[in-house]
């Protein structure tokens, strides 16, 4: 753990430059597709950071965080679509509902440890998914909810944004992401952060050192769920459509964990790295960019069997790539990309020292 004084100036400087660049980006980038990718990355970082607080710092591997993502998304969008409550209120309602539900589940499930906790978290998320499928009156079941309009955001009579372009989503995502990172940093440098990590390292030892396990696990869960729910609301509003198989799916829960595992769990920037690696990659596959690039480069003939196969099928392969990445990361860099780099660097330093 690094304290404030222990932070060297270079990473701080780099972070500041990156943040400024990100704020200016929409002024220089015209491509809506690029903005689209950036927004997806932001949402992924937000949900990853959320999970990271519970899974990475506190060591409670929830593989059911889609439940809170979905609850956030559904609350915000149901309120907006059926009750005409503006999303900037609905988002808070989503957080409240998600945290309330999480605390009930947490106080029940946190007595379980290790693989049993993982299984329980999956079961809870599945209960939510099946319930959303069945409560047709509230959620419109498997058909999902299509958003018709987001009301314009006004202060007084001045319309700040009407949400017609991607720009407002970009800035909302960016600001939320920065808040998520700042909160993670503050947690890491606080009593809570120490307690979370103590629980991760050894629950019994932590307990004997005066840490009330149920209380602190639930606190971690609450922080975690705030960001997961926010990511869900944001996703729903941005994409304009939610259904149980996208926002409450086991696949989503796994993706949330993967963002952190690939980047490096229990580190502030792990989710950022994970999202930056995963999102563009899977989007490139999904949108057939890679297949097209292979064909354009002349490596593969478009009309050959391989060419048609790639064009038709590679877009479905992004989950396959997720799977392969997951296997590779667990087998060869279990501490994620950040941990891997750190290990290589310190090995290099040791060599140089000799």
């Amino acid at each position, binding site marked *: 753990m690094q304290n404030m004084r222990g932070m060297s100036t270079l990473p701080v400087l780099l972070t500041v430059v990156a943040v400024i660049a990100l704020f200016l980006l929409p002024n220089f980038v015209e491509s809506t597709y690029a903005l689209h990718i950036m927004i997806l990355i932001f949402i992924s970082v937000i949900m990853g950071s959320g999970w990271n607080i519970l899974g990475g710092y506190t060591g409670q*591997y929830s*593989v059911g965080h889609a439940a809170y993502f979905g609850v956030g998304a559904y609350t915000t969008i149901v309120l907006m679509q059926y009750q005409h409550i503006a999303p900037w209120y609905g988002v808070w309602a989503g957080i409240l509902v998600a945290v309330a539900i999480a605390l009930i589940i947490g106080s*029940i*499930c946190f*007595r*379980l440890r*290790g*693989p*049993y906790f*993982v*299984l*329980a978290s*999956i*079961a*809870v998320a*599945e*209960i939510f998914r*099946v*319930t959303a*499928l*069945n409560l047709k009156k509230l959620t419109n079941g498997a058909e999902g909810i299509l958003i018709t309009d987001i009301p314009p955001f006004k202060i007084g009579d001045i319309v700040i944004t009407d949400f017609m372009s991607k720009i407002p989503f970009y800035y909302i995502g960016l600001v939320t992401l920065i808040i998520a990172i700042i909160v993670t940093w503050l947690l890491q440098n606080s009593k809570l952060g120490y307690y979370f990590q103590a629980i991760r390292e050894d629950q019994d030892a932590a307990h004997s050192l005066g840490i009330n396990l149920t209380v602190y696990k639930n606190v971690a869960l609450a922080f975690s769920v705030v960001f997961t729910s926010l990511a869900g609301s944001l996703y729903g509003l941005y994409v304009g459509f939610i259904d149980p198989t996208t926002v409450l799916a*086991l696949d989503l829960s*796994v993706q949330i*964990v*993967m963002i952190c*595992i690939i980047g490096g769990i229990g580190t502030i920037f792990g989710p950022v790295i994970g999202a930056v690696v995963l999102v563009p990659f899977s989007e490139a596959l999904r949108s057939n960019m890679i297949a097209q690039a292979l064909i354009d480069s002349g490596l593969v003939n478009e009309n050959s069997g391989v060419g048609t196969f790639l064009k038709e*099928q590679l877009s*479905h*392969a992004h*989950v*396959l790539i*997720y*799977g*392969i*990445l*997951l*296997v590779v990361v*667990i*087998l060869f860099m*279990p501490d994620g990309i950040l941990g891997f780099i750190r290990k290589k660097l310190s090995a290099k330093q040791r060599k140089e020292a000799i």
Partner: protein
Amino acid sequence: MAVFLQSMISGILIGGVYALIGIGLTIIFGVMRVINFAHGDLLMIGMYMTYFLFALLHIDPFVSIIVTIPMMFLFGAFLQKVFINRVLGALPQNQILLTIGMGLVMSNAVMLAFTSDYKILSTTYSSASFNILGISISSPLLISFAITIAITLALYWFLYRTDTGQAIRATAQDRDAAQLMGINVKRMSIIAFGMGAALAGTAGALISPTYYIFPQVGSVFTLKAFVITVLGGMGSIVGATLGGVIIGVAESVGGVYFGSGWKDVIVFILFLLVLLFKPSGLLGTSKD
């Protein structure tokens, strides 16, 4: 009452297949302490194998298990040797994520190869059924139940009567002690994963005449497999057998009385209750 009996019987019949899935998972967990999240995907591969043996070579699905069982065993042994073996000492979370990753690779590779279209394996008897005392019994389910019983008996014989079986059970009971007793724990792990995969594959083969076959079908069964094994007590073979039947009946009866949309909720709530109040399973001895 007739409805109740009807759903009980179909629950027991499908429960036999669930038992196979559960026993496979429980053997893997017992011997290696690894929870296999790719278990349903192994079942899915068994389904596809059966489908193609039927579609291309016209081998009856209930006959083709003779081919499916050894192939799935080899596949499982391979997975253990190449992947699982490397994380045996790692954090349980990492083991779980590895098997999740393996499952994703399997289901999506199958999807790439054969598209995500639903395939239907329709035999002449797929929808055949007969009546006993006003209760209709599906023929393919009954045949698969008979085969399940035969396999389960063979399995019990193997585990309780042969040297290798004893060694596997010893390893499941106490890995370190088994090692000290001179049991080749690594070999047992490979056999265990092979057996787990073979059982999942067999279960897939047995349900293929009555189920839609598609790449994502596994995840449903992975979750069911957890419920079954936790219910019976992780690592307990008798427990998994019992757990399979209980879940089969709970689903079938619950589906009738609460509507089929809710039956999974019932199963998962049952699962949570067992996890919370009797984590050692119905047959396990509670430590506190």
